């Protein structure tokens, strides 16, 4: 099984990289909440434009994130397809108007309202993608635990998250080793085998992987206990950085965005921007 390409930290000098992890985390969370709440096309378009601007500032190159965008595109395409298959007239009910463009077959018509609904639904996801990618690409993983702790999450949980990030490569290597060893013994995992056999075979890989992980938990937690982890209520972080002016500005911007988002979306009492009425 080939190694899966995974989005990871890209070291570079840019304004986005220089912001503290805390700022980026808060910005990313508020941004995704803003996108979740609204269904207002105007807001979504502004957010999309904003996310491109941030992407530009970050100096992350397009080709470095291209493979992830491919995944996102497939995901969105399938989602749209299935929404349409299940309710081809959903937009009509939502926008209380019906403008038929053409009839395909039976209940499957193409209406302007449905197309508009699909557009909005897709926008909601698309405008978060660049920001989410940048959050991963521009945040030093070692700074992540510190930023979680600084927004009020218990440092134990922060530490678990940084342990997770630390052990992903190890677990991945273990997984590759075990699965190759098992394949050498004739256990097939690829599409050649039947579905149920594949599930059963995957258990043959999972068993050693989980058991070795349980051993590792034992070792690591003993080591941490020996060093007195969790004795105190507070903890400092080696990588934590001081807040600078630009951090406050970015945080302010995030708060302003969500405030404007709520204001524009709910001013007329409806979550949807309706150009049809």
């Amino acid at each position, binding site marked *: 099984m080939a190694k899966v390409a995974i*989005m990871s930290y890209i070291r570079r000098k840019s304004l986005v990289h220089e912001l503290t992890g805390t700022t980026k985390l808060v910005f990313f969370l508020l941004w995704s909440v803003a996108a979740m709440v609204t269904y207002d096309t105007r807001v979504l378009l502004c957010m999309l434009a904003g996310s491109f601007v941030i992407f530009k500032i970050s100096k992350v190159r397009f080709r470095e994130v291209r493979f992830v965008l491919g995944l996102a595109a497939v995901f969105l395409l399938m989602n749209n397809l*299935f929404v349409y298959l299940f309710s081809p007239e959903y937009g009509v009910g939502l926008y209380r108007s019906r403008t038929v463009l053409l009839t395909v077959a039976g209940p499957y018509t193409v209406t302007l309202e449905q197309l508009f609904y699909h557009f909005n639904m897709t926008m909601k996801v698309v405008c978060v993608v660049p920001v989410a990618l940048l959050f*991963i690409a521009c945040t030093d993983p070692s700074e992540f635990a510190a930023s979680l702790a600084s927004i009020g999450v218990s440092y134990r949980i922060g*530490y*678990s998250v*940084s342990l997770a990030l630390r052990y992903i490569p190890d677990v991945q290597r273990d997984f590759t080793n075990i699965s190759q060893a098992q394949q050498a013994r004739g256990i097939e995992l690829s599409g050649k085998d039947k579905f149920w056999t594949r599930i059963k075979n995957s258990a043959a890989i*999972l068993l050693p992987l989980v*058991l070795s992980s349980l051993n590792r938990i034992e070792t690591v937690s003993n080591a941490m206990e020996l060093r007195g982890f969790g004795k105190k209520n507070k903890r400092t972080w080696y990588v934590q950085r001081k807040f600078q002016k630009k951090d406050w500005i970015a945080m302010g911007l995030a708060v302003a965005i969500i405030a404007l988002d709520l204001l524009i979306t709910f001013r007329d009492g409806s979550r949807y921007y309706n150009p049809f009425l």
Partner: protein
Amino acid sequence: MKKLSVKSVVAIGIGAALFFVLGKISIPTPVPNTYISLQYAVQAVFAMLFGPIAGLLIGLVGHTLIDATNYGPWWSWIIASGMAGLIIGIITMKLDMSEGLDGKKLIRFNVAQVIAHLVSWGFIAPCLDILIYAEPLEKLFMQGLVAGISNMLTTGVVGTLLLIAYSKTLVKKGSLNKE
């Protein structure tokens, strides 16, 4: 709230790493964006061994990492993943694995995971999806149902196998005999 023990902290970290790695190799089902996910088997086992909070956080952290490296987080399903671990953890909380594993415990584990996946994917995920993304009901419940059933089956088969294998590695109480 009771403080997390050091062991739970590490179990959450490594559990989430496992969840992430397994999530990346999922086997697709015929329904869009829904996969046969081995990670839920591992999450269920960890929830049983390390408790509900560990189950919750393994789901939340692991799923967030998967989504964030794919296409941005789909929060409703992330929350549902966490809730599945929490529910399994709560129902199996009283089971002590150090006493060995018997049929009754395995049944309890399977009942727990069926309830957990039913609630998470049949109820929590679609409801949050309606609130957040306002997609058609039929599509959401169909998607939730397929995800729930496939997670139940994988957890039932693979999770049970994992538990049996794990219990064999444990040294039972009173296993030493005086000769």
